[in-house]
């Protein structure tokens, strides 16, 4: 049995990081992103690496699932690195022919760039590995709640996200069914050229849209039947609580940021 797709990347657990408030995780990951952009020398990149290693150990998530998301962007990382290496202008050339000029500074710059991308992805992956999408949605809703003042429909947006999450598995199931039904009618999805394949998608997409709209119709009724929008003073069963873990994590992240800032003044490449 495959993993429940509802949970996305979530790796079930009850580690320190799993049990943090999703709002703290969202805010601290923003802080982390800023910190990574403050890195200059390789020493600071080493510091980020150590920090991430500690986080992975604390979160008790398998390295395999972290590397999976790295794999997903590996191509992007290599592409940007290649472009940087080939077209970076500053520094003394190591190799030169035609328009291409590979310099020492170019190599260093692209290595840092690649590391930065990798670290950003690993850091944010740690959030999605340790938080369920529903929890993240709740966290975002709570963080966005000040926007209510300017009449931004925070709660509606949260419901939309929650319903979208809720219907992803249903639609996936639906796609499977439609594909099987069309195959039974003799449709071929995995042969022919690009255009033939794109055309073959049409008999999947049309029934999918029809059924999605039918679902939406019924869902709208079900929302009304459950008194959606009955009162502006909607309550919530699940409460988010800022706990000692969030405090500890915040201090740790701020210290980490301090280290990176200090390292800016330390000489080195």
């Amino acid at each position, binding site marked *: 049995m495959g993993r*429940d797709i*509802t*949970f996305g990347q979530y790796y079930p657990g009850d580690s320190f990081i799993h049990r943090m408030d999703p709002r703290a995780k969202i805010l601290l990951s923003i802080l982390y992103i800023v910190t990574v952009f403050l890195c200059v020398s390789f020493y600071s990149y080493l510091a980020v690496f150590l920090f991430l290693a500690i986080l992975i150990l604390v979160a008790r998530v398998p390295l395999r699932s972290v590397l999976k998301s790295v794999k997903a962007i590996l191509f992007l990382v290599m592409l940007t690195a290649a472009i940087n290496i080939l077209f970076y202008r500053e520094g003394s050339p190591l190799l030169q022919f035609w328009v291409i000029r590979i310099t020492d500074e170019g190599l260093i710059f692209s290595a840092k760039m690649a590391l930065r991308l990798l670290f950003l992805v690993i850091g944010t992956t740690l959030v999605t590995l340790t938080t369920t*999408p*529903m929890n993240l949605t709740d966290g975002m809703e709570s963080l966005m709640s000040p926007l209510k003042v300017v009449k931004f429909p925070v709660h509606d947006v949260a*419901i939309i996200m*929650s*319903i979208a*999450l*809720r219907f992803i*598995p*249903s639609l996936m199931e639906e796609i499977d069914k439609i594909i099987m039904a069309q195959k039974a009618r003799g449709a071929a999805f995995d042969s022919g050229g690009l255009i033939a394949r794109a055309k073959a998608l049409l008999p999947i997409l049309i029934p999918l849209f029809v059924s999605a709209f039918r*679902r939406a119709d*019924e*869902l709208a*009724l*079900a*929302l*009304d*039947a*459950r*008194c*959606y*929008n*009955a*009162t502006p*003073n*909607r*309550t*919530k*069963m*699940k*409460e988010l609580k800022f706990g000692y873990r969030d405090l500890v994590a915040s201090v740790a992240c701020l210290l980490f940021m301090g280290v990176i800032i200090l390292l800016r003044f330390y000489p080195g490449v």
Partner: protein
Amino acid sequence: MKKVIELRNVSYDYKSSADERTTGVKNISLTVNKGEFVVLLGHNGSGKSTLAKLLNAFLIPDQGDVIINGINTKEEKRVFEIRSKVGMVFQNPDNQMVASIIEDDIAFGAENLGVERQELIRRVDWALQVVNMHAHKKRTPFKLSGGQKQRIAIAAILAMLPEILILDESTAMLDPKGREEVLDVVRKLNSEQGMTVILITHYMEEAVDADKVFIMNEGEIVASGSPREVFDNEKAVYEAKLELPVACKISHMLKKDGFDIPSCLTVDELVEGICRL
């Protein structure tokens, strides 16, 4: 006895365009008392869903009045009061869930009503216990059977503490086992909690132990009364294009052939009747 639902000469037409109208329901009058188990039968397009939607103010009658617990559905300001009292469960359980975790889904309706947190938690636990799904509280609904999903949908309505539960063909998509599970829960709610139930279906078998049965055809109620009264009205049943339960059919045939047998609703009754011959 307390009247919870009263319809007086209610008609409703769907207006698809300026000059095109489809009859939804025509001139319907009926009353339902508190704690009654009412079954509404009719073939496709006979107006059952339209009638159900009139009961919780999804639709407002063109003519006549719908009165729920003394409130006329025309009172716009009290729509949510009516909807929280008239819970509606639909056909496809998959399209009624809004959250990915069962307890969140159950809480949704009560959250919308602004129920305070401790009470919310209590209601969610209670509703899940009533439908026998408490063990699944923290799980996702996707791997559940149809009957289980539909019980979750019922619990989601129960958490709003409705007085009337309408099930609009909520058993139509289920296998016989799932259907029985759902009907058991509904019967239990009716007998133990005194919940007024309106079960919409086209399986006549589901009507045998109802307090009141209504048969609809072309937007009108063509037969009403106790199950026995309605099932004996063969003409109305056939005109409404419905099938009598097998036991009932056999007993009617035997009677026509001159045997002295009462009309039977269930197989047990039929067996007993035949043994007495």
